[in-house]
């Protein structure tokens, strides 16, 4: 894999300059929300609230029906978003509709990336005949691009929509070659998750493939807000200490105090998902107006960003 070296900020390796720049100054706050949760318009407002609250990069979840790396909170968000009709095409439209000034990263599972542009093969090969029977208007646009599966079409569309990179939780380094290639072709970054169990040769393999930033998984298990900071965080950070890319820590961070401790432990940024999704879920449960929920999300973002800043002081 050959990628351009630092594209701006010192000490970063990224295809996308905006992503490199996001980690260049103070500790980065990287929030996640599932796109389309609980509906398209509210979701736009929530993501924009994250930007107002100080997000430096935003991870946008494209919902997949079998999210095996997610805990109950984000599973719930994915169910709500899918029920409200979120699809890959609408996801890209969402990215284009967003009025934010920070780099956006798509977090999704590999099957959605792989299928994009492959659907509805006109000759019905590969057992796809059932799609012809079920084809609606939307299928017409896929017809043209129908063909072999692979990540290229998805990455090309993501670049066009203005995304900066990808996190794909079910795509380990061994299977990531085609996506890495497509990312390089279109100038996007591929972020890998380093787990507490990742050691030895696996670290070397990922180091070679990663760009943008590395997602340091703070604890084993699935995503979800926790009340404690894992004591494995420092251990995990130490394993990637000499990597050229910025280190962002995620899994379990729920408040400003935890954010502070993670940054104090050496992280270049913090990734927070479930604690924010919890606010969306609570709003749905109580029937709160979207602007009220957006304000709460913005306030939570400020708390987390301020915590991250304190960690560097």
């Amino acid at each position: 894999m050959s990628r351009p070296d630092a594209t701006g900020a010192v000490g970063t390796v990224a295809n996308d300059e905006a992503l490199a720049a996001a980690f260049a100054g103070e500790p980065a706050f990287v929030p996640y929300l599932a796109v389309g949760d609980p509906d398209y318009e509210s979701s736009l407002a929530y993501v924009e609230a994250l930007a107002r609250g100080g997000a430096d990069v935003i991870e946008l979840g494209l919902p997949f029906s079998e999210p095996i790396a997610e805990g109950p909170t984000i599973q719930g968000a994915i169910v709500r978003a899918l029920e409200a009709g979120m699809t890959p095409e609408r996801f890209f439209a969402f990215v284009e509709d967003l009025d934010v000034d920070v780099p956006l990263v798509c977090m999704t599972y590999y099957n959605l990336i792989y299928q994009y542009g492959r659907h509805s093969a006109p000759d019905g090969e590969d057992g796809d005949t059932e799609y012809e029977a079920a084809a609606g208007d939307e299928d017409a646009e896929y017809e043209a691009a129908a063909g072999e599966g692979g990540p290229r079409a998805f990455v090309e569309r993501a670049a066009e929509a203005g995304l900066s990179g990808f996190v794909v939780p079910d795509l380990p380094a061994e299977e990531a070659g085609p996506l890495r290639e497509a990312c390089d072709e279109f100038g996007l970054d591929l972020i890998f998750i380093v787990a507490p169990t990742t050691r030895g040769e696996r670290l070397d393999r990922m180091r070679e493939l990663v760009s943008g930033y590395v997602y340091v998984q703070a604890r084993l298990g699935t995503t979800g807000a926790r009340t404690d900071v894992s004591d494995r965080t420092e251990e995990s950070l130490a394993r990637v200490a000499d990597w050229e890319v910025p280190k962002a820590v995620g899994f379990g961070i729920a408040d400003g105090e935890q954010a502070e401790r993670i940054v104090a432990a050496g992280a270049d940024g913090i990734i927070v998902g479930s604690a924010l999704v919890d606010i969306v879920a609570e709003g749905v449960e109580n029937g709160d107006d979207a602007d009220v929920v957006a304000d709460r999300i913005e306030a939570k973002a400020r708390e987390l960003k301020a915590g991250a800043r304190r960690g560097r002081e």
Partner: protein
Amino acid sequence: MTDATHTDDENAESDGRFGRYGGQYVPEALMPALEELEDAYGRYVLENEDGFLEEFHRRLDDFGGRPTPLQRADRLSERYDTEVYLKREDLLHGGAHKLNNALGQVLLAKYMGKDRIIAETGAGQHGTATAMAAAHLGMPCTIYMGERDINRQRPNVFRMKINGAEVQPVTTGRGTLKEAISETMRDWAATVEDTHYVIGSVVGPHPFPSMVREFQAVISREARAQVQEKTGRLPDAVLACAGGGSNTMGSFEAFIGDDDVDLYAVEAGGSSLSVDEEAGVAPNSATLSTGGEGVLHGARTKLLQDHHGQIMESHSVSAGLDYAGVGPELAALADEGRVTAANVDDDAALEAFHRLSTDEGIIPALETAHAFGYLKQRQDELGDLVVVTVSGRGDKDLETVIEETEKREIGNAPDMSLFSGGLR
């Protein structure tokens, strides 16, 4: 292995790929565990380190009751004017072929020094087999089972609990096997350092598809020797029902190198082969016949999915076949044409269930009944000597059978009003 008809070198490359299928699409946290498992599988199972295979086969014989018989089905042979032989996996301890794999994996986990077992289950047969194997080998065990499946396979839930396993209901999605696998993977992602995930079929990331096939291959290794001993020849056809494909791969493995033996994987046609994209529902589980290529639960394989790549909710009257994916090796063999993918709908499976029960005195699992439904449909095309695997017995299905038979007109079924209100 002793049987040279089909080895990993020929069909599965060492990196766990079967043609375009297979691979390891899992969260990074699980990758080291898969590498550890691959190493342990190679040393203990393929190279018999520390006498693993002797212990495995001794326990399969003494605890499991192997070898299982190959029985001539007298009435069916007469009815179809074809020699029909039954490989009686329903007589294995626990009442299904599932113990072959569960015992192998729990024993392997013990050799690996793991101290906890988790597993998913659909019909409850794999969960039951894993709970039995875990009790037999003294390992704590948690089984994930979809809520819908818990309701339609209650006898197996009781059996698991009685064996000391914890049964965790899974409430996401439709509450069937797909959701149970996802939930077990989530548990594993949190506990991977001391826990082994006993996957129940030839699905999931490498090395599971190869390893589960290897543990189940005992079915066809025995059947191939038994049929030659009884008839002096190899069969013209082998029939096995296919959900994820462990019974199928186990029933086919030793015959794959025998080019004159036709292999039929019989899937659940459910209520219809058509798909409701809007609702995200495929009213069948005929993945090999109608699915498209994609990535699910750790492997690239054939799937029931919509055109975006979202996984469909599948359907079958038999919980054990009700799955939107299929093993990658079976998908590759079907693409190559070595295995013929077939399917039988709910109605025909129920009819076959009653026929085997009344003709032969064998109450089959509803999964198994699909293979017999196909035998009836294609009796003239399958040749003179057919082996059908009776993958499991049907005790667990009696409530479902009563309910589903009452909804239909099935000529060969006894009067189900005898049981109205269920068995209790």
